[in-house]
């Protein structure tokens, strides 16, 4: 399915404001939020789809403005796709991507990881699945030794000879820098 239909400008009646972790506000058309389970549920719970309800800005404390911009780009492109589905098992396993997706995800690995975490947090199944497939495709056709190099794993787990407890870990897992996204946003006051 493609998104050939014209986009409509958000109006105060059909949009919400989300606030990124660095304090930047984004005006988001309610139609776009249908791709995100987290946002769609939040809007439903607070009845933000009603015109007579006051809509407070939604803080997204785990998503930076750069990530939010990237996500909005995805949501705009998939505006007229079916909305998110719970337990969507019909995800593709193909490593072939449309040109737009290839261009969209032609970003450094660390940005892709952050975007994956953001897609996971906002629960945008199509974006989440696409990034996972892109990541998997970067491993495909490689030997164990090559994967070790790609993933930058230098050591294996070694157990302490006395306790049997692992004393070394894969180097890549000990690296810092990955933001932890685990908590849902605090709901805005009504």
């Amino acid at each position, binding site marked *: 399915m493609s998104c050939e239909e014209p986009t409509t400008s958000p109006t105060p009646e059909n949009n919400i404001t989300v606030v990124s972790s660095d304090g930047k506000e984004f005006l988001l058309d309610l139609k776009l939020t249908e791709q995100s389970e987290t946002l769609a549920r939040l809007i439903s719970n607070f009845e933000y789809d009603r015109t007579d309800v006051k809509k407070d800005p939604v803080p997204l404390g785990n998503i930076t403005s750069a990530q939010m911009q990237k996500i909005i780009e995805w949501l705009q492109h998939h505006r007229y796709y079916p909305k998110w589905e719970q337990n969507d098992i019909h995800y593709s*396993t193909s490593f072939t991507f449309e040109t737009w997706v290839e261009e969209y995800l*032609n970003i*450094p*690995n*660390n940005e892709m*990881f952050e975007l*994956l*975490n953001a897609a*996971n947090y906002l629960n945008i199944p199509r974006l*989440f*699945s696409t*990034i*996972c*497939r892109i*990541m*998997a495709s*970067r*491993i*495909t*056709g*490689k*030997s*164990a*030794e*090559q*994967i*070790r190099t*790609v*993933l*930058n*794993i230098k*050591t*294996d*787990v070694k157990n302490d000879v006395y306790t049997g407890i*692992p004393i070394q*870990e*894969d180097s*890549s*897992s000990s*690296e810092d*820098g*990955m933001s*932890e*996204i*685990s908590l849902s946003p605090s709901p805005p006051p009504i």
Partner: protein
Amino acid sequence: MSDGDPPLRLLSLPNTPLQRIVLCMQHIDQFALSLVSQRCKDLVKSIDLTCLAVYVEVESKINIRIRITDCSWIKCLLNDDRATAVKSEVKTLPDREGFAYSKPEYRVEDWLRHILEMYHQSEIDRIHLLEPLRDVQSFRDTFTSCSTIVFNARSESEAVELSRMFCPLKKLEFYVYQKDPKTLVAFRTAGIANAQFHGGYNIRKKDGTVATLSFPRYCHFEMLVW
């Protein structure tokens, strides 16, 4: 992704995306990933992969075939060179794409255990033991049961020993290299000049009559009543 791109810090990801990425991988890539480190192996195990069957053929090389789906296999060919570590050649079938890998600490039974753990199997569907293994007891300890075993034995006592070792079994086929001269004489006395004795089971009736069940071909058996 450019050349100067930082490495994929896959293992830094939370569990949900990490497991989903592994689920998206090809079977052979999942297998390769499981060999990288203990954590990678645990990760692959955590996505609950299964397979339809595991077959082992022990000849000059050891061939472990994993039937993932009706039309997708992984073949792990092990070269148990006694001077060096077991060298493995892993391929998918029918594509025949794959990689070679040597894990110094892995013996044949470790490779088998790795595969069984990865696919959450405890049973082997068929073993062809046509050449002796370096450590048959360790090999046996890697799985709980085997549906069918076919083996060559140098003597009847070895055949009995192997049969006991691999029990419980649903089906047993074996061939004994050294034919018992007394048995052959008995065959010839009975008028069977060209007897080829493949070993088998003895059945004894209450009246003392003994019959030997033999399996000279895959498709039929012989019962010789003495």
